[in-house]
C-alpha cells in the first residue's frame, strides 16, 4: 500500500510528460494521495502498508517501505497535505505545464519515499530524487536571480549529500549490521571511537540539508527565487528530511553526538539569534520568509540538543515529540506563507516591503490568512507552532530541579529571545504589507481578493494549523504508541 503513495505521483508525472492535461492529472493524483495519506492514520499499523523487497544481496539492501513509527506517519501526512496544496497553488508560466506539474509530483514522490522508507539506503536515495527536480525548477522557472540561486543550491545540497553518504556508509560499516534496514541497524551498536567521526559527518551532512548555521546561505536566495510550489515543498517538507534522519539514527550514535553537543548548541543559537537578526533586516517578503525558515530550524535543533544531553529517548521523552510537532507545524505554516507571498507577488507585482501597504483593504481574506500564518509562525497560542515551541522549551528544562543552569537550559533561555525576534519581523512585515494607506500597487482597482479556487489549498493548510494548535494530542497520540511487535499482539490476544 505504501508503494502506492510513491507510485501515484510518479506515474502521474510520467503520464503528464506523455499525454499532457497536466493540471487535472496532477490535481487528481495529489488528491488521491491526500486521501490515502490521511486514511493511513487509522490503519498505519496494519501490515498491508509494509513491503520489503531485496534489490541487492551483497550488501543487503531492501526496497522496504512502511510506517516505521509515528514520526514517519506524521511526516507522510505533512507531505501529502503540502503536496496537494502545492499542486493547487502558484501560477504556471504559459506552455511549461508539463515540466511544472511533473516536477512538483516528482518532488512529492521523493519526499514521501524518504519518509516511508524503512531502509536507510532508499531513505537517502529518495531524497536525492526529490532534489533534482527542485534544482531544475529553480533554474528554469524561478524568478529573479534564478540561475545563481539554482547553481548555489545545487552545489551546496550535492556537497551536503555526499558528506551525508560518507557518514551513512561508515555508520553501516561500523555497525556490522547485515542489512541496511532500520530495524537491524538500530538493533546493532557502534564502538564509541567510531561514533564521534560518524556523528560529525551526520551533523554536517544533514546540517547542510537543514540549513544549519553556517551552511545556511543557500536557503534564502533559493526560496526567494523558487517557484511557489517548490519553495513550499522544499521548505515545508524536504528540509525536514535531515531532522527526521537525525532523530531516526540518533540511538546509533548517541555517545558520538555527545562529543559535539557544545558545538551544536553554539550553531543552533546562531541559527536562532544571528539568522533571526538577519531576518529582521530583510527588505523583501520572500527573502524574509526564506531566512525565517532557516531560523526556525534552530528550535528543532534545540530539541535535538536536549535529547543529546539527556542521552536517550527515554531520558528525555519530550524531545522527540516536541521536534516532530514543530516540524509538522513549521512545514504547514511556511508552506502557507510561501503560497500567500506568491499570491501577493502575482496580485501586486512586487514583494518589496517598501512598495507594499494597505493590501488588507483590497484583499481582506488574503490579509486574514497571512495574519493567521504569520501568527502561527511567531508561535501564538492556539496555533500549531505554539504547541511545538512550548514542547521544545519544556524539553530543554526536562528534569531540571532548580540549582545552577546547565548548558541546555542556558541555550533554551537564549532561544526564547528568538520568539521576540520572530514577532518583530513578522509583525513588521504584516504591517508593511497589509496595514496603512493603500499605495499604487495595492489599491483595490487592480488587486482582486483571493478567488475560491485559491482559497481551498490555503484553507486546508490553515485548518491543519488550527487543529494541531488546539488539539496537539492529535499528533502526540500518534507518537506515543510504538508499532506493536507481533509478540505483543499475541499476548494481548491472550
Amino acid at each position, binding site marked *: 500500500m505504501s508503494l502506492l503513495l510513491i507510485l501515484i505521483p510518479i506515474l502521474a508525472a510520467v503520464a503528464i*510528460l506523455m499525454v499532457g492535461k497536466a493540471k487535472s492529472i496532477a490535481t487528481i493524483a495529489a488528491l488521491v494521495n491526500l486521501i490515502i495519506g490521511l486514511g493511513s492514520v487509522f490503519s498505519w499499523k496494519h501490515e498491508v502498508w509494509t513491503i520489503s523487497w*531485496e*534489490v*541487492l*544481496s*551483497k*550488501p543487503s539492501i531492501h*526496497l522496504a517501505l512502511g510506517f516505521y513509527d509515528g514520526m514517519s506517519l506524521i511526516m507522510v501526512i505533512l507531505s501529502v497535505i503540502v503536496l496537494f496544496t502545492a499542486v493547487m497553488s502558484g501560477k504556471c508560466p504559459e506552455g511549461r505545464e508539463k515540466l511544472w506539474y511533473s516536477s512538483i509530483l516528482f518532488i512529492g514522490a521523493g519526499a514521501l519515499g524518504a519518509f516511508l522508507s524503512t531502509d536507510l539506503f532508499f531513505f*537517502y*536515495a*529518495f531524497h*536525492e*530524487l526529490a532534489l*533534482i527536480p527542485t*534544482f*531544475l525548477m529553480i*533554474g*528554469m522557472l524561478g524568478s529573479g536571480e534564478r*540561475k545563481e540561486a*539554482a*547553481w548555489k543550491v*545545487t*552545489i551546496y545540497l*550535492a*556537497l551536503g549529500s*555526499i*558528506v551525508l*553518504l*560518507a557518514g551513512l*556508509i*561508515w555508520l553501516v*560499516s561500523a555497525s556490522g549490521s547485515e542489512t541496511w534496514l532500520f530495524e537491524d541497524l538500530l538493533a546493532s551498536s557502534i564502538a564509541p571511537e567510531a561514533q564521534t567521526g560518524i556523528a560529525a559527518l551526520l551533523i554536517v551532512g544533514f546540517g547542510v540539508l537543514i540549513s544549519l548555521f553556517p551552511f545556511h546561505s543557500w536557503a534564502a536566495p533559493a526560496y526567494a527565487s523558487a517557484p511557489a510550489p517548490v519553495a513550499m515543498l522544499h521548505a515545508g517538507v524536504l528540509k525536514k528530511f535531515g531532522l527526521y534522519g537525525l532523530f531516526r539514527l540518533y540511538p546509533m550514535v548517541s555517545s558520538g553526538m555527545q562529543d559535539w553537543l557544545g558545538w551544536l548548541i553554539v550553531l543552533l543559537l546562531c541559527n536562532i539569534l544571528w539568522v533571526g537578526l538577519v531576518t529582521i533586516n530583510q527588505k523583501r517578503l520572500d527573502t524574509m520568509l526564506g531566512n525565517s525558515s532557516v531560523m526556525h530550524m534552530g528550535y528543532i535543533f534545540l530539541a535535538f540538543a536536549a535529547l543529546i544531553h539527556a542521552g536517550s529517548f527515554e531520558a528525555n521523552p519530550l524531545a522527540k515529540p516536541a521536534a516532530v510537532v514543530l516540524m509538522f507545524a513549521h512545514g504547514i505554516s511556511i508552506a502557507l506563507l510561501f503560497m500567500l507571498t506568491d499570491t501577493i507577488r502575482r496580485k501586486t507585482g512586487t514583494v518589496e516591503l517598501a512598495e507594499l501597504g494597505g493590501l488588507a483593504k483590497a484583499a481582506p481574506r488574503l490579509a486574514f490568512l497571512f495574519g493567521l500564518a504569520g501568527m502561527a509562525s511567531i508561535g501564538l497560542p492556539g496555533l500549531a507552532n505554539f504547541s511545538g515551541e512550548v514542547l521544545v522549551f519544556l524539553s530543554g528544562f526536562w528534569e531540571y530541579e532548580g540549582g545552577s543552569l546547565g548548558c541546555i537550559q542556558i541555550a533554551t533561555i537564549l532561544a526564547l529571545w528568538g520568539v521576540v525576534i520572530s514577532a518583530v519581523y513578522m509583525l513588521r512585515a504584516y504591517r508593511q504589507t497589509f496595514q496603512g494607506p493603500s499605495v499604487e500597487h495595492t489599491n483595490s482597482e487592480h488587486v482582486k481578493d483571493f478567488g475560491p479556487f485559491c482559497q481551498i489549498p490555503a484553507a486546508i493548510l490553515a485548518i491543519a494549523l488550527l487543529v494541531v494548535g488546539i488539539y496537539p494530542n492529535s499528533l502526540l497520540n500518534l507518537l506515543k504508541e510504538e508499532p506493536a511487535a507481533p509478540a505483543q499482539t499475541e499476548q494481548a490476544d491472550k
Partner: protein
Amino acid sequence: MPSYLLEILVLAGGLVLLILEAFLSPKRKSVIAISAIFVLFIVLLLTFWAQKGFGSENVELTRYYAFDSTALFFKRLTLVATILTVILALDYRKVLSKFTANPNSEDGTGEYYCLFLFACAGMMWMASAADLVSLFVALELTTITSYILVGFMRRNVGSLEAGVKFLILGALSTGFLVYGIAWMYGATGTTNLAEIGQNITEENSTYLLFGLSLVLISLAFKMGAVPMHLWIPDVYQGAPTPTTAFLSVASKAAGFAIAIRVVEPFLNGSILAPKVAFILAVLAGATILLGNLAAIPQKNFKRLLAYSSIANAGFILLPLAAWQTGDSDLTSKQVIAFYLAIYLIMTFAAFFVLAVIHRNTGSDEISAFEGLGQRNPLLALMTAIIIGALAGLPLTAGFWGKFLAFKAAIDAGLWVPVVLGFIGVAAGFYYYFQIIRAMYWRNALDESPFETKPLSFYTIATLTGLIVVLGIWPQPIYWLIGS
C-alpha cells in the same frame, strides 16, 4: 565448446570480413558493420556454452590461458562493448567518410568496422591471460589495432595528431611492460603468474616489486590511470567518436582485467601484499583527484568525458586497493566487474548522445547542448538521466558502482583515498551538472528541432532504461557476474 574458440571465431570473422570488404561496392560498406555485429552477437550467445578448453593432453597451452568466471565476464563485457561501438560507428559513417575518402561514398569505412573485431579478440584473450607472455601478445594485438583506429580519419588533423600521440606513449608503455616482465622473470625464473605468486620470497621481493611497479605503470596506460593518463584527453578528443567510446570502455575494462590477473598473486600472498595495496591506493587516490579536478574547467564534452574516464579509473582502482577475497562477502573482483558493467552502460549512452549532438550541431562543445531542453525534450530528459548516472546520483545505476567501490574502501579502512574520492564525487556533481545547466537553463541560438536517427535513438533509450531499472534493482548485474 572450448572457450578458446570464442577468440578464434572473432578473429576469423574479422579476417573474412576484411576480405569481403575488398569486393563490396563503395556505397554498401555498412554491410560489413552489420555482419560484424552479427558475428559478435553469435559469439556472445556462444559464451553461454563455453567451458574450459584444454584437455589434460594440452598442459603446455593451459598455462597460458585461464578460464574462470572473471574471464567469462570480461569476455562478455568486451563483446557487448564492441557491438555497441560498431552500432555507434554505423551512425557515424558520414563523418568518417568525410575525413577518409570521397565524402559521397563510403569508401574507406569498411576496414574500420573490421579493426574492432581484431581489437575485441585481443581483449578477450587478455581477460584469459594467465602468463606474462600471452598477456603481452594479447595486449599488443589490441594496442596496435587501436593505433590505427585512433588515426583512422587521415584527412583530419586532430585525428592524426591523436594517433601520433597515442603511438608514442603506447610504445613507451610497452617498453615499461617488457622491462617489468623481464624483472619479474629474472626474480622468479617463470613467466606464469600463478607460479610467480608461489615463488615470492623475502630475498626476491624487492626485484619483484620493482618489476611489478613497471608493469603497473604500463597497465595504467591501458586503464587510463595516473601516471600514464596524459594521452587520454588529447587522444579522446581527436579520435573518431566510436574509437573514443571503444577506448574508454573496452580498452579500460581489458586493462582492469589484466591488472586483476597481475596483482592477484601478489595480493593473495603475504609478503608483498601490504606494499602492493599501498601502491594501488596511492594510484587510486591520485587518479581520482586528478581526473575530477582537471575535469572542472573543461568546455568540450568529449574532453570532459576523457577526464571523467580517468576519474572512473580511479574509482575502480579503489576496490582493487582494498583487496578482499573469500566467498561470503563481496570480493573486490566482483565490485570491479559490477562497476565496469555499469560504466559500460553509462559511458556508451553518453557517447551516443555526443554523436547525435555532433551530427546536429557539428560541435562537441558543452555549449552545443544549450537549449536542448526545448529543441528535443525527450533526448534532453534521457541525457539528464545519463549525466545523473555519471555523476552518481542515487536511483540511477551509476550510483551503485560508486557506492560499492566506496563501501569496499571504507571496509578496508583506506581513509585518505576515500576522502579524496568524496571530494572527487562532489567535483563530479559540478562538472557533470554543467551539461544539465546548458540543456535546461540556457537558450539556444538555433531553435530548430533536433533530429535523431532511429538506430541511435533506440540505443540511447535502451541504455537509459537500463540505467533507471538497474538503479532501482541492481541485482541482475550480480547474476551476470556469476555470484
